[in-house]
């Protein structure tokens, strides 16, 4: 089940052992072991999944990381796009929301 909408205190994480990813140009096919589903992700969505696999990050931290990693301006990558994408990735089970204290 998808978690409740993220709050600023939440951090996101993923477990890189739970998925397999194959890159095709700027897109990724991701096989998620727990669900057996295959997902088609663009570079930004996969970038988020990958970023939180090395340690939990808040939405703000993810936003900053994505803008740096992909050289995107605030106009090119608004906060709302990151929030929407995180919500979709959460619904797919590819990332998990953690409490700030965890």
């Amino acid at each position, binding site marked *: 089940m998808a978690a409740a909408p993220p709050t600023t205190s939440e951090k996101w994480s993923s477990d890189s052992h739970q998925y397999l990813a194959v890159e095709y140009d700027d*897109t990724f*096919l991701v096989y998620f072991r727990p669900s057996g589903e*295959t997902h088609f992700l663009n570079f930004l969505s996969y970038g988020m999944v990958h970023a939180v696999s090395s340690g939990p990050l808040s939405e703000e931290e993810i936003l900053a990381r994505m803008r740096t990693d992909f050289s995107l301006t605030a106009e090119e990558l608004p906060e709302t796009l990151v929030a929407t994408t995180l919500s979709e990735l959460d619904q797919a089970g590819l990332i998990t929301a953690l409490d700030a204290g965890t």
Partner: protein
Amino acid sequence: MSAPSNVASYDRRDLRAALRNGSFTLHLGPFSHLVSGASEPLLDFLSDTYRDYSVELTPSDVTDVLLRLEAPNILRRFIRRQITPNPGFKVPAVPLPLSMSPLAFEMGLNLSVALKCCRFINVHAGVVADKDGAIVMSAASGGGKSTLTAALLQHGYRLFSDEFALLGLDQPLLHPYPRPISLKQETIPVVRDMVGDNWISKVVTGTPKGDIAYYRARASDLAQDKTSAKAKLVLFPKFEKGVRPIARQLNPAEAIMRLVPASTNYSLLGEPAFHAITGLLKNIRAYEITYGSTIDSLRLVEQITDQKLV
């Protein structure tokens, strides 16, 4: 145990007896199929359309497919006779008049392979191959897959299947399963004109799918039914009357996301299926082709394979 021999080499009485007592074993590609059914239209169909296929008329304990063609109830064995495929598990098959036995037989084999086979990833697709590799053609019903498959057979390709791309799990190789090509409605005269009357079965009229006929596989295709091939191209054909021919190259990931829902067992097989299907698309191209005639579709395929379209 007798050695397999072509259907045509057997006496009709022996074929009938084997079908009645459940000792008709059809060998094709990676599968053996034990078939039973007391139906003269089925016997006619097998004697004609399957004349070059390899069979044994001895019972076998181990087969991949067990298909019984039987009446839905005792009444329909005798009065207004009907037939239904029983592949050994419950399927929502509508009983058909006995005259439609060929359709019941083909449907039963399709259901068996689609829903029971786990040695390969099954993708609903036509596959043909030449010396350079195989072309996989995945299309929705009416997309022109069967007509394009039949047309490519006239241009140096051999038949793998009109129905299933069987993709190996250990290696990304396609395995032939050259059953007759199923032709529906208006494709029947088109393919008949292309290949000649002798290659087309008797038309089964008034079926739930409309008129159906079958294009018999060639002996040369059957002789190579154990010779697998690597894919060289994946196509998503789309027939639209009167449209200008166009080809659009797809990102391999998009192509895979189209093949996955066309597979009956991808979800069941899980991770090995993911490895195999990503392996299939490794270093090959995928296109969506839209066309309004067989000539246009052949021209597009030729342009793509000759790398004139990049």
